[in-house]
């Protein structure tokens, strides 16, 4: 039992990170129908920038805030310089553009920062809590609550605020949104900033546990993308569930079956799910209009 609980803790911590990356995917996808493969780089930038600002003597909270702000700015620039000029390009083109952006950001990070592995101290120390025989790091609780807070915040933003509704309207029909007076360019910029900030937040929360380096983004982007698709692209709740699910599958497979094939288990589940539900778990059934 305690062992199962330990696997669950592990799965939830890792899954929460995937969920945050998946949420980042969702925000941008909803506003622009672009799947941003540079999403993992936002996580990396959040972590790496915090490390370097913190090392320069800024207190950890200030460093984290600055890093998130910096990443959000990069998100806006990415939209302005790469996504906006490519409006109307095909899915494959957009995939290559965002992969190009991720390679570019990674290359930049290894020049601006370095190629070493880094970490900064956990927010509330490293003494684990002991719960029914299983242990949980205080930082894991930060990650879990952070993911929950981001999710609730986004939910409230999209359903309760005028600005959030404007984002949804833009996602639904760009032209119509513009006709009713929504500044769709601003909405796009906002979405990229928001998505980048969510990614950076994940990076800040998780670096004390998972460590960070300039190239951690690739795998995170893959897992986050897979999580978003498993949950159903465009659905924030789906992203949350998809992320946690993949984390849990990995942890329990590693624990009970084979640590060699834990990543394989996650992808097999995704493939089988998509075979049965081609729109993911919570994705909307799209009706082809002809």
């Amino acid at each position, binding site marked *: 039992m305690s062992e199962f609980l330990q696997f669950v803790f592990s799965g939830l911590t890792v899954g929460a990170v995937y969920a945050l990356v998946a949420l980042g995917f969702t925000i941008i996808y909803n506003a622009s129908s672009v799947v941003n493969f540079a999403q993992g780089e936002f996580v990396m930038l959040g972590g790496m920038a915090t490390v370097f600002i913190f090392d320069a003597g800024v207190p950890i909270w200030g460093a984290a805030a600055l890093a998130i702000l910096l990443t959000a700015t990069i998100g806006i620039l990415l939209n302005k310089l790469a996504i906006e000029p490519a409006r109307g390009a095909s899915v494959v083109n957009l995939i290559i553009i965002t992969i190009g952006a991720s390679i570019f950001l990674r290359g930049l990070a290894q020049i601006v920062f370095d190629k070493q592995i880094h970490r900064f101290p956990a927010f509330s120390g490293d003494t684990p809590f002991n719960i029914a025989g299983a242990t949980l790091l205080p930082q894991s609780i930060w990650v879990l609550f952070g993911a929950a807070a981001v999710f609730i915040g986004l939910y409230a933003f999209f359903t309760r605020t005028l600005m959030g509704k404007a984002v949804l309207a833009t996602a639904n029909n760009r032209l119509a949104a513009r006709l009713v007076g929504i500044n769709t360019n601003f909405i796009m910029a906002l979405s990229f900033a928001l998505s980048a900030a969510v990614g950076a937040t994940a990076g800040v929360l998780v670096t004390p546990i998972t460590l960070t380096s300039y190239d951690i983004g690739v795998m995170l982007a893959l897992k986050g993308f897979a999580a978003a698709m498993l949950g159903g692209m465009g659905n924030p709740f789906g992203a949350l569930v998809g992320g946690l699910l993949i984390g849990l599958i990995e942890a329990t497979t590693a624990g009970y079956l084979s640590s060699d094939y834990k990543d394989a288990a996650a992808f097999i589940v995704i493939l089988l799910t998509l075979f049965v539900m081609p729109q993911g778990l919570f994705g909307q059934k799209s009706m082809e209009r*002809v």
Partner: protein
Amino acid sequence: MSLLGVRGLGIDFGGITAVNALDFDVQPGEIVSIIGPNGAGKTTLFNMISGIYKPDRGTVTLDGDDVTSLEPHKLAERGLSRTFQNLQSFEQMTALENVMVGCHMSERSPVWVDLLRLPSSSRRNRETQERAMTLLKRVHLEKAAHMEASSLSYGALKRIDIARALACNPRILLLDEPAAGCNAVETEEIDALIAEIAQEGVAILLVEHDMKLVMKISNHVIALNYGEKLAEGTPAEISRDPKVVEAYLGSHGGKEAADALG
């Protein structure tokens, strides 16, 4: 036995009934028009008959065989062909190639024959090309044969759509607003073309907003509103039907109602 039979056909989208309890028949060589205001379910009906949507209720028969929910390509093999309201042209292919794809069923061959470009593959290519050219001539587009579809006008694409559908050698042809976006001359041409096709014995099911055209060429008209059949009869009967007039007045205003009344 009718060529196309529709019985109790219905579909719901997210709890809202889009089309309900529809019955009608189409005989060979007959032109049947479906009219109704926007959102009446005309295109949805086409999508169900041509196998793109799976109906929730009812059946579709071809020659008495139940073909409900059959894949579109299976229906095409049975002689049902269609065009699209919002154009589904193969934009990166030439006008000629668009029509050649329509000849697919008569030029199908094993893949390896095409990969190695065996003589039979080249021969079929030539035959198809000749046939497609004839069809293009029929819609007066032979001059545009080697232009990419994306560079052609809306009216031209509409006619390519028809040529492509004709290439399938259909026994029943579903035309979704063939004259939309066409000027008066083009509309006349399409009008004549439809009549000609019908005379060859092809049944035609037509959705069209141009009431003059509808009233002129139809043998039979079915009026839809909110997914249900409002009225059915000859063009003259329909144009006098008070329910039809009201539906048009209610949703579209006087001009179209006046059109509908001929």
